[in-house]
């Protein structure tokens, strides 16, 4: 027995040829950095709950990943972020959806868990709760990066193509999902 930690920055159709050596190095560098931060906290005796919040805040603040700064865009070019946290010792949990101004949605999710009788707040209610709690907020433009604008443009363009080439009834016209290749080689999947 002992402490252990794992973190991820998303999965998808990430081919080796689609990531430049510089981008790969940048990703691996921040993964290493955030892993070190989490390990240090666990070594100091911090609780698992505190550590997962700490590490996810770091990931949210890093524009290389699809949460917080660099969150992907909706069809309308807006940001709708989601987060959740769960404490295994108590099975308490908290979650938020549809927040567009909260810098660290994971910390808002923890506040839902600890400060409300609920487990899940969304959209206007979540934003109002964020203001009540005094968490850091920013204008929506803070989260939108040039790269994500470009990805949305490509996805919108590819979406039109994919509508014409749906291969199954899982296509968007049937309310299902569609997969859109992004400029960085990720699939449209998060």
């Amino acid at each position, binding site marked *: 027995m*002992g*402490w*252990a*930690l*794992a*973190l*991820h*920055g*998303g*999965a998808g159709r*990430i*081919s*080796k040829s689609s990531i430049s050596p510089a981008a790969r190095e940048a*990703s691996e560098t921040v*993964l290493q950095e955030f*892993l070190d931060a989490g*390990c240090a906290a*666990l*070594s100091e*005796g911090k*609780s*698992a709950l505190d550590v*997962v919040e700490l590490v*996810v805040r770091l*990931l*949210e603040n890093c524009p290389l*990943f*699809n*949460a*917080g700064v660099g969150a*992907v865009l*909706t*069809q309308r070019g807006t940001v*709708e*972020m*989601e*987060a*959740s*946290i*769960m*404490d*295994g*010792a108590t*099975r308490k*949990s908290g*979650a938020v959806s*549809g927040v567009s101004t909260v810098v660290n949605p*994971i910390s808002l*999710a923890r506040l839902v868990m600890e400060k409300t009788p609920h*487990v899940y707040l969304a*959209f206007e209610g979540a934003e109002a709760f964020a203001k009540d709690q005094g968490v850091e907020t920013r204008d929506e433009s803070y989260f939108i990066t040039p790269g994500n604008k470009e*990805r*949305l443009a490509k*996805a919108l363009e590819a*979406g039109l193509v994919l509508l014409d080439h749906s291969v199954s009834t899982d296509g968007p016209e049937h309310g299902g*999902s569609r997969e*859109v290749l*992004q400029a960085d080689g990720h699939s449209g*999947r*998060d």
Partner: protein
Amino acid sequence: TVGCVAVDINGHCAAATSTGGLVNKMVGRIGDTPLIGAGTYANEFCAVSTTGKGEEIIRCLCAKEVASLMEYKYLPLKEATDTVIWKKLGEGNGGLIAVSSTGEVAMTFNTLGMFRACATEDGHRQIGIWKD
């Protein structure tokens, strides 16, 4: 999507997941991340954070499924995560990270890649994107 799971020196597990969702998603779309049991779950056995195609992860209830396999079928962590990712979640649909209360770690995915890293108190460390 980003996520982190941890077990501390007291054997307590926790999981956290955060996301922007899908590029070009419909306004108002809810993904797997905030749905406890789908994208995120933790109990006294393990902690799980998933990533991938949210709608499929919701249908499979992936995170809770891992915990249930450990709790009710007594599977070790790696076997439980392999079962969920390779036998229940369709190929190419995603992955997960998980830790057990006894300090095991699993990072399992059936997509081409997953940005991931892990460490244990005994010095094991791994950082990777692709399977190899």
